[in-house]
């Protein structure tokens, strides 16, 4: 269900410092932090007050919900041990696009125990952002996850947990209000249809763009809804073995390799198309669901400036021809 309104409170009724104190008492706090190199990263937050503006961090929330290297179990002294349940944490200063991405991950990993264990420990506080030149979000076209959202005028409770927090801080009478949504300065994401996409599988643009693609995997690594993973067992000298889940990437030659060295997705053009298909139309139970939240990370990191949105526009031009 795509909720368009949430219970909200005028900002002057919410004691933000008190709210932060309540959150901090129970959880490790993470926030976007812009380093000396100009890059913003999600980092443990020290003392200080709540940030008031969301910043798109280098790596999105999947860094914490689906870590790049996550222990699943270990086998030691003849026994299997499941990994420890992570501690409760909160992330503040999350842009709305990243909250939409978490909604998508929540669906894709609905039956995934390690993901759900981490997710259950997470409190997500969204904030209004200032869209940058790479941003292509298109408002509430996708549901969003999260617990609270703060802009310059109001605070919204996005979940029962968020509502409980606000009540604990003395907020009583809420008003159902639509979320304020940033207006992307460079326009919305191009709305490619499945028909356009599947009628252009042989379009020259795929081989053209693939010639430039370095297969470095940066776009997928920083994408908030790219979630491919691999399993890796590592043995230790004491005889124990630990299984890790690690990020995988559809641009890597090994990604489509199966038994007998058969590759069901050979070549860069296929891999590029595969990523576009996943971003725009999903797979499995999520077929038909867009997963590109328009955060712009992929076009920002690509060393050869490949832009899925520009490809979508060009496919639109070629559609049906």
């Amino acid at each position, binding site marked *: 269900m795509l909720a368009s309104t949430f219970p909200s409170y005028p900002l002057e009724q919410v004691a933000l410092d008190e709210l932060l104190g309540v959150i901090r008492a129970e959880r490790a706090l993470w926030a976007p932090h812009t380093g000396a190199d100009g890059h913003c990263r999600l980092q443990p937050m020290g003392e200080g007050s709540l940030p008031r503006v969301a910043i798109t961090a280098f*790596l999105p929330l999947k860094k914490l919900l689906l870590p790049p290297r996550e222990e699943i179990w270990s086998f030691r002294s003849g026994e299997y041990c499941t990994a420890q349940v992570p501690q409760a944490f909160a992330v503040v200063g999350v842009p709305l696009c990243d909250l939409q991405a978490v909604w998508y991950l929540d669906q894709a990993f609905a039956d995934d125990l390690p993901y759900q264990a981490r997710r259950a420990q997470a409190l997500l506080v969204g904030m209004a952002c200032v869209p940058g030149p790479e941003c292509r979000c298109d408002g509430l076209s996708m549901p969003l996850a999260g617990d609270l959202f703060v802009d310059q005028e109001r605070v919204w409770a996005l979940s029962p947990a968020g509502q409980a927090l606000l009540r604990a801080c003395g907020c009583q009478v809420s008003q159902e209000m639509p979320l304020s949504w940033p207006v992307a300065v460079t326009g919305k994401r191009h709305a490619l249809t499945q028909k356009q996409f599947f009628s252009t599988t042989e379009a020259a643009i795929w081989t053209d763009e693939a010639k*430039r693609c*370095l297969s470095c*995997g940066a776009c997928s690594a920083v994408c908030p809804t790219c979630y491919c993973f691999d399993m890796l*067992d590592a043995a*230790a*000298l004491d005889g124990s073995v630990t299984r890790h889940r690690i990020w*995988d990437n559809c641009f890597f030659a090994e990604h489509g390799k199966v038994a007998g060295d058969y590759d069901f997705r050979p070549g860069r053009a296929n891999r590029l198309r595969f990523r576009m298909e996943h971003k725009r139309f999903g797979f499995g139970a999520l077929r038909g669901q867009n997963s590109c939240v328009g955060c712009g990370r992929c076009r920002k990191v690509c060393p050869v400036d490949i832009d899925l949105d520009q490809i979508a526009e060009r496919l639109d031009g070629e559609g049906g021809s």
Partner: protein
Amino acid sequence: MKFKTPIKLAWHRFTSCSGCQLTLVNCEASMTALSAVVELHDFALVSSALGNSEVIDVALVEGSLTSPSEVKRLLALRRKAGLLVAVGACALTGGVNVMVKGERRRAMESIYGKPGTEWDTFPPQPVHHFVKVDWQIPGCPPEQHELLEMIAAILHGGWPGRQVMPVCMECRINENRCLLEEDHAPCLGPITRAGCHALCPGIGVPCEGCRGVVAEANQDELCRLFFAAGLSEQDIRHRLERFGEVL
């Protein structure tokens, strides 16, 4: 292939700097655990015990091959070793030794003087040109954890699992700033096998490709980027050939 613990281990160095064996010797925290599962049979850097055992379970080989006597020693080692592992860039591709180009006699003379011209040597070759290699550990030097995990996997009768991906992936995971994209630096990250946790780019040094090239690498486009960034064709060639992989 599963061996009785402790496994009989040998380390042979050919033409190289000993940096690979030092990497294992520097695993201080794992030395006690290592000594419980490994029996050294030939490892000149750490033990004076001579290598005259008839059977070796695991032979680790470092360095490139540059003379007939080295080849003879390698063949003898392969005959008595259950498994042979090539360790480091020199063993895998010839490594930096391959940079010596041109007329060999003249090169030898310029470095070693007249006596050098009499020595029986040939251009550096990787180990797999002469013997079957059961496993490879890349890097200049290799990563400690890859050496230890391989020995641990052999104890279980297998090889370690590993994921083949470029350095860029580890660099993005570490949230390093991109030297290629932001500085137009000649970073070989997009085409180089990861596993080093993007050590060099992480401290601002462009990747030099010491771990070898990933499968299906797009060298053409990377060269075009380097060229656009102002590198000459010769600079680019030198950079790509530094670790012996002629592209």
